[in-house]
């Protein structure tokens, strides 16, 4: 009887450390995987890339031009982060393109063109319209 009890205790003593070891390792590596996944779909790098791309398009464009930019990845990331509106803003006063793909901030980049800039979304595309300065006001 005593011998059997001894044997049982020995087996569990051998098993627990192995189980704990596996669980700790699994936890550790799943945490790392989750971290890498979250970073990979993080908004910052896309906010920066889109802001700079839009600013360059504005600087390069001439009046009466319309420039489409494929914004599908940006929309996908924003949806994932629970943001559905105000993804791209044009700050006329400071001449800045502001891209916000989550609620926690965004990225701003200045453009040097002095034309009026209007933007709108059409499906997955961001359409940028360049107008002569004051043309919109003159029309209205």
């Amino acid at each position: 009887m005593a011998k059997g009890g001894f044997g049982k205790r020995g087996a569990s003593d051998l098993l627990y450390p192995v189980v704990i070891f596996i669980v700790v390792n699994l936890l550790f590596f799943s945490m790392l995987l989750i971290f890498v996944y979250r970073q990979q779909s993080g908004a910052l790098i896309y906010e920066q890339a889109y802001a700079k791309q839009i600013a360059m398009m504005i600087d390069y464009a001439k009046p009466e031009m319309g420039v489409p930019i494929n914004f599908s990845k940006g929309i996908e990331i924003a949806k994932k982060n629970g943001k559905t509106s105000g993804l791209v803003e044009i700050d006329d006063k400071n001449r800045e393109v502001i891209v916000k793909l989550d609620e926690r901030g965004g990225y701003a980049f200045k453009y040097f063109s002095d034309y009026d800039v209007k933007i709108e979304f059409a499906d997955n595309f961001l359409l940028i319209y360049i107008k002569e300065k004051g043309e919109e006001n003159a029309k209205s």
Partner: protein
Amino acid sequence: MLNLKNKAGGEKLLSIWWFFVLTVVGVGIVIAVLMFYSADVDIRELESEILYERVSDCIVQDGFLVEGIFNKDFDLLKQCNLNEKIFNEDKLLYINIQIFDEAGNNLREVEGGIEEGNSQFPRQCGFQEKGVEAKHYAKCFKKNSLVLYTADGKIKQGKIEVLTASNNQGRKIPFIENE
């Protein structure tokens, strides 16, 4: 006896060395991923080139220099529809235009050519031409091209030298400002 042996095995598995290895691996991966995804997309060189295109497009039309470019009060920013704030308040960009005749004489009334923006940038461009590398120096673009102009009722050939530079780096908007 058996019990003691098992205890020793468990201790070996979850020893401090194993945690040390996990920590090193974890910290390594975290640092590498953070560095990769927070990398800056540097477009300053490209922006200088775009600025050059924009300026040369507006001062040269059909191969001729635009009217009034030799005048002292020629407003380059207005002529090229460039925003004054980013050049003269934010000081993130720079343009310099030199105009020469065929013999290489400067044709502008004002010495130093037409200049707008941050006047520190030409020095930084000069250092970089000599091979000095600095992360926070403006990125430059310089190009010469042949142009035509009219003087004394005759069409003459000249040369323009345009230097553009950018140190426009963008900024992350923090959560507080967003609110």
